[in-house]
Structure formats: structure tokens, C-alpha cells
């Protein structure tokens, strides 16, 4: 136990809190700014970025802390979104029904696929999660009665105990922001707990952790299920926001984007995944408004960050602060 306690703290305690607080405050003020410019365009962009941030944070729990690089994480988003889409189409619009169903489906799929995936590690784990992601992707595309590859429009919107407040532009915005903050806070409770320390210790030396009497497999599976469920909740929110779901939500390209977001921001840091996701979307939006060939700029920028910013954007921030101090 003592070695686990002695594991170095993940980040310095105060500054990351200030940064996260600033980001959340900015996001909370965004609806006000959007009155001045952009209106629902800005808020809907922010909703998309926040939903991705929720998923990225859950992925970082796996990648950064448990050392499990999942290349099929977007499948959970797709599962959540499709549960919402299908239930609404079938007339079950009550969020109090949709959300638990989505959570159950995601947890079930995570438990099943996780039990198989977690027998492997390293690159094999990356590829086997890809395999399960692809199965979900092709499976959803074959649901002809729910639009097949074309996807599914939600002609009516989910309700919360019979009311419609979630589907108003403001309602969904605050719910997503609140979910993001909760996910952020909860993840760091988990990471800071004994559970998190076991995960991190197992990342560095699984044999040792096992010899101390912990079932590495069970800890990892639990983390895998938690991350999957959080992503599925994000998927339900996406379906509610976009009123449209499609299999492409679960494609390997999306899973790859998520990995890139987490690495870009800085793995296993308090704000890395959050900053990575927001930065990714913001940059994509800004660059693509300048030129349709924005990837000519975005690509090399990613290369530069990979080459020169160890620890991602958060690492860069730390060094800038370190140099200033």
C-alpha cells in the first residue's frame, strides 16, 4: 500500500484548478457572448466541443491513467446516440427511460468487449478495441429500419418528465456544461482515489500490483466500463442536441480524432483532455473559416506540437509558466 500512496501527484494542485475554472467560466459566459455574435451557431459549436471534451476526458481515464489506448472509444458515443435515436423514434421520449437504457447498453457492451480486450495490452489492445468499434459501426449501418448508413433524424425530442426544457437551446447548453463539469470533477475524484492509484501503478508494473493482491483485470475492466458509460451519456446528449444520429459517430476516424485530442492536450493531466478537445474543435473551426484547404495548416501544426511540445498543450503551458516564473 505504501508504494501506491507514494506515487507522485499527477499535477500540481492549485494552478490546474484555476485554469479549469477559467475554462468553465468562459463556457458559462458563452451564451452571453453569443448574443453579440453568432447566436446559436456559437453555442452549438460550444455544445459540440463540450460533448467531445466529455468523451475525451473519459478516454484519458483509460489512456492516461490506466495505460489502455482504446481505438474504438467512439463506439460508445454511437451506442448512446442510437439508444436515444431509436427510443425516440419508437415513441419512448422520456429521458428518465432513455438515459438508464443507454447506460445499461453501454455498460453491457463495455463489460463484454472489455473482458475480451483486456486480455491483451499495448498495440494488441489498440487493435482489438478497433475491432469491436468496427463491429458496432457496421452493425449500426445495417439497421435499415433506423436509416442504415444514412442515419436517423429524431423527429421529436426527448422529454424530461414530460417537459421540453431540455430541447430548448439554453436547456441543452446548461445540461451539457453541467455534465462536462461533473465528468471533469468525478474523473479527478476517481484518479485521486485508491482506485486511480492502483490503475496508474498497474500501468507501470502490472505484475507488482497483482502480487500485492489487486486484480489488475477487474480494476481495468471497471475503468473501461466507467469510460464507456460516460461516453454513452455524451452520445445521448449529442442525439438530443443534433436531433440526428448516424453510424459515422462510431467510425474509426472519430476514435482516432479522440486519441489525437487527448494526446494533443496532454495525457494524464488534470486538464489535458479538456483543453485538447476544445482546442481541436476551435482550431478546426477557425482554420476552416479561412480556407477550405485548412488541413494544410492543421496537419503540420499537429506535427509541430508532437515534435516540440512534450506533454501536449498542458506541458507547453507548464513550461511557459515555468519560464515566466
Amino acid at each position: 500500500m505504501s508504494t501506491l500512496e507514494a506515487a507522485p501527484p499527477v499535477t500540481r494542485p492549485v494552478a490546474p484548478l484555476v485554469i479549469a475554472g477559467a475554462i468553465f467560466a468562459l463556457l458559462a459566459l458563452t451564451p452571453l457572448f453569443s448574443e453579440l455574435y453568432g447566436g446559436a451557431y456559437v453555442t452549438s459549436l460550444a455544445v459540440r466541443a463540450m460533448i467531445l471534451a466529455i468523451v475525451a476526458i473519459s478516454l484519458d481515464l483509460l489512456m492516461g491513467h490506466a495505460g489502455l489506448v482504446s481505438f474504438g472509444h467512439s463506439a460508445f458515443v454511437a451506442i448512446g446516440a442510437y439508444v436515444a435515436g431509436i427510443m425516440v423514434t419508437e415513441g419512448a421520449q422520456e429521458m428518465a427511460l432513455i438515459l438508464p437504457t443507454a447506460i445499461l447498453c453501454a455498460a453491457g457492451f463495455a463489460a463484454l468487449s472489455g473482458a475480451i480486450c483486456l486480455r491483451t495490452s499495448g498495440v494488441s489492445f489498440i487493435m482489438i478495441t478497433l475491432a469491436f468499434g468496427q463491429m458496432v459501426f457496421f452493425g449500426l449501418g445495417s439497421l435499415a429500419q433506423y436509416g442504415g448508413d444514412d442515419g436517423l433524424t429524431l423527429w421529436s425530442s426527448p422529454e424530461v418528465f414530460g417537459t421540453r426544457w431540455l430541447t430548448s437551446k439554453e436547456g441543452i447548453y446548461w445540461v451539457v456544461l453541467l455534465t462536462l463539469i461533473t465528468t471533469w470533477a468525478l474523473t479527478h475524484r476517481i484518479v485521486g482515489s485508491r482506485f486511480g492509484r492502483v490503475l496508474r501503478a498497474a500501468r507501470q508494473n502490472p505484475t507488482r500490483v497483482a502480487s500485492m493482491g489487486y486484480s489488475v483485470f477487474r480494476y481495468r475492466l471497471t475503468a473501461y466500463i466507467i469510460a464507456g458509460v460516460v461516453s454513452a451519456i455524451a452520445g445521448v446528449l449529442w442525439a438530443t442536441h443534433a436531433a440526428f444520429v448516424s453510424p459515422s459517430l462510431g467510425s474509426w476516424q472519430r476514435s482516432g480524432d479522440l486519441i489525437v485530442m487527448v494526446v494533443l492536450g496532454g495525457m494524464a493531466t488534470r486538464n489535458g483532455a479538456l483543453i485538447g478537445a476544445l482546442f481541436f474543435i476551435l482550431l478546426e473551426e477557425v482554420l476552416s473559416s479561412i480556407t477550405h484547404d485548412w488541413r494544410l495548416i492543421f496537419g503540420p501544426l499537429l506535427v509541430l506540437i508532437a515534435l516540440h511540445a512534450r506533454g501536449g498543450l498542458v506541458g507547453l503551458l507548464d513550461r511557459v509558466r515555468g519560464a515566466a516564473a
Partner: protein
Amino acid sequence: MKMGALAAVAGLMGLAGAALADVKVGMVVTLSGPPAALGQQAVDGFQLALDDLGGTLGGQATEFIVEDDELKPEVALSKANGLIEAEEVDFVVGTIFSNMLQAIFRPITESETFLISPNAGPSTFAGNACSPFFFVTSYQNNQNAEAMGAYAQDAGFAKVFMIAPNYQAGRDNMEGFRMHYDGEIVGEVYVPLGHQDYSAEIARIATSDADAVFAFTPGGMGVRFVRQFRDAGLADRMQFMSVFTTDETTLPAQKEAAEGFLAAGNWAPDADGETSEAFVSAFETKYGYVPGGYAMQAYDAAMLINSAVNAVGGDLSDKDAVRAALRAADFQSLRGTFSFNANHYPVQSFYQLSVIEREDGNWATSKGTLIFENYEDSFAAECNM
């Protein structure tokens, strides 16, 4: 309503300068990935119409904003939100693909902005999900296949083999072909979207005793399928019929492999009529390639908006008046007769098209016999608005 009112106020106060356009049109089409050629045709077609009209629509200074949906639903949604909320456009023209249209349909029509599709025409929005704010200048997706089926029936092909990618539009087109075709379907194969190698399917076609093949293999799929079909020597044994497979976006790559192949459509670059001829020659001079239906339908979309803005005298605040003006379709379509059905989908004629090499060495489709005159789609009855 808000932005209409704003525009009206701006007009009254004489604020409309060069920077402040009177009419704003946003376009959402696919400009990334292999199908980008389709989106580019739409952009160029619309731009050409704007140039022909001196940069105005309905005599009003016009700003034209082009957005790339990247063939990703969430990007399409974000771009559409940008157009209606940040840019406050008066019209959105889009999309090329039906799944992109599904992604942007609700936010745009619910914001009471007019959405005009230059290509995608899914059955849902023609039927029970039709909207007073949605117009289509192309066709209902199944119609080309329906016309092709009717042609196959008339031409007396007794046995047909069908092939399409395994997604909604693929299945819709297969259904469409069956509508007027009573002969025997000797085989029906679905391949994954973006399929590369058709030799297995070709082997099946060869071992079936089909007189003709009906294919829906759009874009790069069509390029590969047509060439492999020709290489396998099947083109000499049976007739190749298709929709969205041998068009002006794929023919530059298919060339002689597609010679004599048949298609069905609402227009071809050699269609007669002065406006159409002028359009094709101006387009080729300006952009250096042969325009296809995508360009033509986008050109018509611009002319439609032009006619509507003219009819309401530039006052876009009265949505009902604008809608009535759009409904009237008071413009000269490049394809000849054109009017809107009750569901805002076109009523138009369909022709048999065939692939030819033009005298200048370019490959294009050529308009043949009339299949349907003033043909309506089969979903209009389900639309109540």
C-alpha cells in the same frame, strides 16, 4: 423572422453598402474526400448563375458563402448553424448527399430559413416530413431509377441483374427500378460503400443469364465498376444501365470504358434550347470541364432564388410571399419545363441518356428518347402542408 426584419430595416435606412449584401445565400456541399467533384460542380454552377446575373439575385447585391460539410453529419450541422445564426443567410442551398441533408434539415427549416436542395432529394422530405421551407431543384432520389426501370421495360430486357452499395440510397434506387419494371431480376447484389474490387460481382453477373445490368454505383465506385465491367468483356454481352454511375463527374476517368452505356436523367449537356447551350459553353470556358446535372441543378437553384427575390421586390421579410414566389418557379430551367409539386419537389421530364465521346474528345452523356413527361414523385401524396 428576426433576420428578415433586420434586413428590411437595413434596407429602409439605406445602410446596404457593398459589404452589407441585400441577399445572402449560404451553400453547404461536400468539398472534401472523393465525392468533392460533385460539390464543386454545384458551387461552380451556382457561381456561374450569379456571374450571369451580375452578382445579384433579384436585382439585389448578393453575398454567396460556400461551406464544406466534409461528408460528416456533425460538421454539416455546425456549418448550417453558422449560416443561419452567425451569417443570418436568407437561403441555404444544399446538400449533395441525403445523409448530410438529414443532418441539417431540422435546424434550418425550424429557423424558418428557406432550404433549397440542388441534388439530395430523399423520400422522407418528399412525403410525411415535407416542409414549407424546403424546396428541391433536382429530383426525388428514386426517380432516375424509376425512369431507368421504365426504359428497361419498354426496351424489352427480360432479365436484369442489379447492383448497388449497401446503404439507404442504394436500396431506394433498387426499389425505384422495380417500380415500372416487370421482368425478372436474376440477381441483386449489395456491396459495401466505397467498394474497390468488383470482380466477384462481375463473375456473378457473367454466370447469370442477364440481358442487362442495372447499377447504382456513384462516384469512384462507378469509375471502378465500369472499367472492370468493360475489362471483363461483359459490355459486349449485355446492356449496361445505371444511375449516378456514368455522369460528368465520373466520365473523365471512365472515358471509353463507358461508351454506349445508358442512364436516365432530367438533363444532359447536349440538351437543346438556347439557355442550356449557352450555359454549357459558358461553364466549359470558365471552369474547363463539362458540367453535369449537379452544376445544372445548382444553376437552376440560383435562377429560382433570383425569380423569387424579383417577385417580392427584394423584401424577404414576408416568408409567405417568398414561399409563394418560389412555388411559382417562374424561371427558365435549363432542362425545359419545370414546376413544383405540392411537396416542393419538381415535376419534370426524364430522358434516356447515353455516354458518347464528343467531337472535342471530352466524354459526356447525351440526351436520348423521352421516358416520362412531367413526371411526379410517388411520395407527394403523403405530404400535408
